[in-house]
């Protein structure tokens, strides 16, 4: 359990450190160190879970089970690789005069703050704390979105703030309702503890839980970026610094979905009707299709990929909604591979935008000829995110399709349509970006592409074969969520 505390403690120290540190110091590197240590701590935690199974802290405040342990490691991992990417990236931004030292300091402080919030969302056993941490994540990132202080970035941040704030307030209402339902069957002090609620799920009042779930879904769904609650997402992704987009897409959305699924498990236990599943399927499919359509008319490369995130989150939500072991397994896997791939893409996108000096798609051309590593990284990342094997995204999409075909065959054509449209939407923009002759005056930038290589390598690995321990966690989590193991 010490490991879990350590995981929380390190970013907390990080916040304090950056808050008081001298802004002249090499903060990028220090940020990497913090994240690296944190990753080690999460690995320790993971090993503990691997050996002992589910860990519940003595105060029952923290819970680490197969469902969240891999997400914790993933969070730390993406946090680390993104920080590796962000060090030279932010230095470059400072060089070209977009940032000052003070804002850089703010950036690193908030980076650690965001990481803390993420870890807290994942590790806490208390649904109330989960909400607090979720809101904390919004608060930590909102200033990062407006870091450049351009009118657009301020607008984006404001929308992000208001929409997510209002949205997450709904989640709090849902949590209160949940608490209210739990109060009726037990004592108040433990009534928000997920582990307690989960064991007593059958006794909870189904009507209240259904209503609560609506609020929770709308609330956390805003953060997931479910259509029509998604409107903040592309703005925030496109206007903030790119490392921020990477962690938003890779981590925040995942964690919001995690929160929804945790709550869905309770609702499923209580109601037996599949109302939660249907709602999630509906939202998921809608987001998936609308997100895919949005891809087509994008002019900004980061907006493009943020819509792709909406689309993928839609697919995961849909898959969790289907229920069933296959779909759940697929969704869990998809969470992992989407985070890895999307953050890798944002890294390359960040470099691409720096190379071209703009985020406008029609200005970025001939990347492969300008800087082959970035161009290939972007192209292969896009292929991976579009669901081409042997990358892991394919595996999950494959399973989702099969599960859809199995449970709701009439929805399968829609899913198929969505994947097709999304693919076309991505590639019609990416192809001209990476291919072709390089335009005048487009020069390579200093870039560290190891995060991309590592991420895509991992996604490739997951596509070819899922390592034993991860498979074990996935299937345990699947059992936990859907009640049965995959095949």
């Amino acid at each position, binding site marked *: 359990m010490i490991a879990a505390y350590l995981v929380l403690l390190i970013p907390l120290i990080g916040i304090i450190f950056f808050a008081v540190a001298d802004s002249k110091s090499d903060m990028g590197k220090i940020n990497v160190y913090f994240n690296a240590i944190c990753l080690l701590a999460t690995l320790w935690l993971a090993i503990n879970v691997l050996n002992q199974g589910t860990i519940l802290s003595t105060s029952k405040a923290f819970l680490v089970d197969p469902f969240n342990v891999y997400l914790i490691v993933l969070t730390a991992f993406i946090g680390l690789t993104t920080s590796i990417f962000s060090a030279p990236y932010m230095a470059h931004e400072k060089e070209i005069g977009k940032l000052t030292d003070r804002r850089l300091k703010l950036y690193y402080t908030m980076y650690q703050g965001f990481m803390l919030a993420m870890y807290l969302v994942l590790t806490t056993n*208390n649904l*109330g*704390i989960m*909400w*607090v*941490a979720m*809101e*904390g994540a919004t*608060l930590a990132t*909102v*200033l990062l979105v*407006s870091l450049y*202080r*351009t*009118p*657009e970035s*301020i*607008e*984006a*941040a*404001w*929308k992000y*703030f*208001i929409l997510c*704030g*209002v949205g997450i*307030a*709904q989640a*709090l*209402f849902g949590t*209160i*309702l949940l*608490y*209210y339902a739990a*109060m*009726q069957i037990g004592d*108040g*002090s433990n*009534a*928000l503890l997920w582990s307690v609620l989960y064991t007593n799920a059958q006794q909870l*009042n189904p*009507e*209240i839980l259904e*209503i609560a779930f609506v609020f929770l879904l709308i609330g956390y769904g805003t953060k997931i970026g479910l259509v029509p609650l998604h409107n903040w997402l*592309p*703005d925030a992704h*496109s*206007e903030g610094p790119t490392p921020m987009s990477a962690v938003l897409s890779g981590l925040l959305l995942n964690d919001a979905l995690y929160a929804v699924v945790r709550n869905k498990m309770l609702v499923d236990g209580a109601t037996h009707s599949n109302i939660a599943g249907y709602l999630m399927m509906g939202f998921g499919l809608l987001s998936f299709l609308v997100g895919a359509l*949005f891809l087509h*008319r994008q002019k900004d490369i980061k907006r493009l990929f943020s819509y792709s995130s909406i689309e993928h989150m839609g697919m995961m939500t849909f898959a969790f909604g289907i229920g069933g072991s296959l779909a759940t397994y697929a969704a869990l896997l998809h969470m992992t591979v989407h985070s890895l791939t999307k953050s890798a893409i944002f890294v390359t996108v960040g470099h691409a935008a720096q190379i071209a000096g703009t985020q406008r798609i029609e200005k970025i051309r001939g990347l492969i000829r300008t800087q082959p590593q970035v161009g290939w990284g972007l192209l292969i990342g896009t292929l991976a995110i579009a669901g081409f094997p042997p990358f892991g995204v394919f595996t999950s999409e494959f399973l989702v399709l099969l599960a859809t075909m199995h449970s709701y065959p009439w929805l399968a054509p829609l899913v198929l349509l969505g994947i097709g449209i999304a693919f076309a939407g991505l590639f019609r923009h990416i192809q001209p970006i990476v291919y072709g002759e390089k335009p005048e005056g487009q020069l390579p930038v200093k870039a560290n592409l190891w995060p991309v290589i590592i991420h895509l390598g991992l996604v490739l690995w997951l596509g070819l074969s899922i390592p034993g321990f991860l498979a074990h966690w996935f299937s345990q989590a699947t059992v936990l969520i859907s009640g049965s193991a995959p095949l």
Partner: protein
Amino acid sequence: MNIEQTDFYTQAILSMAALIGLTSFLMLGQSRLLRLIFVFALQGFLLTLTTSLAAHSLHNPHLYISAALTLILKVIFIPWMLRREVLHMNIHRDVQTLKNKTFIMLGGASLMVFSYYVLHPIVQTTAPVMLNALAVSLSVVLLGMLLMISHRQAVAHVVGFMSIENGLFFAAIVATKGMPMVVELGIAFDVLVAAVLFGIFFLHIRSSIDSLDVDLLNRLNEIEK
């Protein structure tokens, strides 16, 4: 259920619920910002009262802390900040005309009914007072959203946002006798940070569009031109 059969606490809670609901309506109909802020502070004060009442009646001392936090944050700090902002921007004399004011008010009323309707299934399992309290808090949440939808000033948005928060608090206190302490503190912390951030944002927005009208924040859109 007849109100005379209930204890004093319940009666008081119900009255508070009614008052809070009323303040929400008042806010919805307000077109002057300063008055809006005042009503918001009033709502915060009512909430503080409710919390203390609950703390007293239910012998739940940590609710006093909540009450104090509410008082500081929502009755004093945020209204003060907003007021300063409004005065600074010199928009306190502006009268923002609401389109379809009657329509909005009617909508607000039907939202209240709707809240009862939605929460009705709960009645079978709980005391009706809870239903009332929850319904009022739900309608406060919804009215808060409606307020944000209908008002164009960023200040009004903050007020709406905070009043949603008030509704939630009310629900938490009345229906569930307060959340666990750590959660309450966390929420209060979030509200504080949010309030600070709002302050920062007012500054930024002002410097970027020289106004606090959110309708002017529409650069980022997907509409084909």
